[in-house]
């Protein structure tokens, strides 16, 4: 088969950029397809700092982090197709995309999915009440304020303690918008602790845990929301309702990997992450199609996205050059207190380090990582604290796993 490109990357955010740069190192013909008018992805609207500590050892803003990679990509002979939206991918790696020139058909030696994620919207979390204007996702508000010069409103309530909402609480406060409070359904905050401190505590914005919005009031524009405390099952407690007058409600209730395209291709998703199930090469169930970044699972730190993307880029290049072989795989099982792992499959015989990313199901004040293989405990970690908001990494090395694997479980054992 004649390929237009050896490696085609779908999406030009940090994941796509990292993957393309790495694939190019093998001297292949590489292209990036991006639907926006410029590269950089979601980072272009994340004007706050906190990026790059892991990868560059520097505290950068989102645009600074992405510009470094854009410069790197531009220096190389990588084809960049902007304003180009991928609408279909077949399992034999033919891509259909649209741009102002019409339909494009592109044959690829390997494809890397790096479409990022989208936000949970009101529909996805089901708040009853009327449908006035003034209800946005936190990321939409971030776009308005940081890219388009629009203010979302004057008096704001934030539902959900995800990082984007926290970052926006600070941003709006500094722009003179009144942020009345953040309401979180769970008994713990979802965002990173540093964001709670520097975005809420610094500005005395209250965080109400185990509390949610149960109704929305307003005809054309939002006029008020009703909040109520919830019990352990998440049901509103009668008598705790409170009416809060506001003209804007921001939803910061989570991100979902963007995989409409992948599903149409026949790629199987992990129900726990909504990203593709992948092996240690970050390859999906369809050979030659790889995934990384927020399209694979939601990351809170872009540094991990870049690292993961580089692996996908390397493995896609290896695949094109015929350097990967089909090895026998076993499934990694999330054990007690572990919500999911990436990858989902690993080879029975490990000959190099494999990074196992995972998240816990609930905050654990003190616990230890326990890894079991073939029914035996092969690793017990140091005592540490674990939070669902923090992605953890465990390095599976030939030293830890000496024998051939038949099963592998990663769990967190709580220490009382």
């Amino acid at each position: 088969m004649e390929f237009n490109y050896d490696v085609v990357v779908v999406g030009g955010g940090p994941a796509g950029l990292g993957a393309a740069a790495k694939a190019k190192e093998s001297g292949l013909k590489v292209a990036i397809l991006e639907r926006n008018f410029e590269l950089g992805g979601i980072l272009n609207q994340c004007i706050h700092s906190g990026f790059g500590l892991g990868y560059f050892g520097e505290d950068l803003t989102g645009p600074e982090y992405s510009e470094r990679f854009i410069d790197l990509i531009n220096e190389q002979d990588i084809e960049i197709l902007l304003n180009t939206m991928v609408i279909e991918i077949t399992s034999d790696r033919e891509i259909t995309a649209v741009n102002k020139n019409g339909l494009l058909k592109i044959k690829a030696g390997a494809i890397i999915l790096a479409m990022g994620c989208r936000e949970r919207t009101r529909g996805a979390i089901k708040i009853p009440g009327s449908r006035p204007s003034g209800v946005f996702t936190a990321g939409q508000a971030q776009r308005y304020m940081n890219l388009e010069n629009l203010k979302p409103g004057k008096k704001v309530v934030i539902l959900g303690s995800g990082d984007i909402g926290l970052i926006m609480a600070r941003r709006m406060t500094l722009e003179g918008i009144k942020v009345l409070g953040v309401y979180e359904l769970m008994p713990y905050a979802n965002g990173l602790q540093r964001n709670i401190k520097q975005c809420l505590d610094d500005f005395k914005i209250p965080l109400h845990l185990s509390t949610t919005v149960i109704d929305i009031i307003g005809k054309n524009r939002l006029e008020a929301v009703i909040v109520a405390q919830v019990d352990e099952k998440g049901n509103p407690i009668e008598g705790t309702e409170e009416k809060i007058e506001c003209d804007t409600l921001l939803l910061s209730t989570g991100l979902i990997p963007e995989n409409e395209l992948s599903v149409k291709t026949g790629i199987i998703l992990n129900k726990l992450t909504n990203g593709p199930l992948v092996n240690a090469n970050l390859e999906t169930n369809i050979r030659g199609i790889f995934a990384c970044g927020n399209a694979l699972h939601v990351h809170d730190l872009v540094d991990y996205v870049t690292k993961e993307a580089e692996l996908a880029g390397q493995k896609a290049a290896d695949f094109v050059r015929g350097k990967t072989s089909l090895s026998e795989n076993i499934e990694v099982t999330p054990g007690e207190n572990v919500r999911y792992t990436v990858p989902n499959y690993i080879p029975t015989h490990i000959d190099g380090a494999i990074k196992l990313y995972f998240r816990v199901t609930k905050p654990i004040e003190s616990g230890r990582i326990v890894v079991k293989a073939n029914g035996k405990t092969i690793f017990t970690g140091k005592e540490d604290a674990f939070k669902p908001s923090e992605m953890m990494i465990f390095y599976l090395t030939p030293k830890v796993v000496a024998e051939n694997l038949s099963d592998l479980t990663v769990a967190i054992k709580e220490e009382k």
Partner: protein
Amino acid sequence: MNSEILVCIICPKACILNIEMENEKIISILGNKCKRGVDYAEKELTNPERALSSTVLIKGGVLPLLPVRSSKALPKDSLIKVMEVIDKTEVVAPVKIGDIIVKNVSNLGVDIIASRSMRKVI
């Protein structure tokens, strides 16, 4: 002797620092996973600082706003004052990343710099 609990915000590990103080001097810190936590606690308890990012209006650029940041952390209590300056600032495209947008803002010895390059619309 009195004690303070702080969350270190230098990196995402967010260590909880248990600090013992005497006569406004730190005598011991527990809970930091690295040395930067100690520097942070000292700064935070004497003169707290924060990095600031925002946007300024830009004329003739591919977007109406240019993201900017403080070149170094600013005293925490100066943020509102600095925001007033930033809100009044307008620049013209093209701009390069790192260009100084406001020099020595509010005489604090810190510049406001561009955090991305922005080309002119043609």
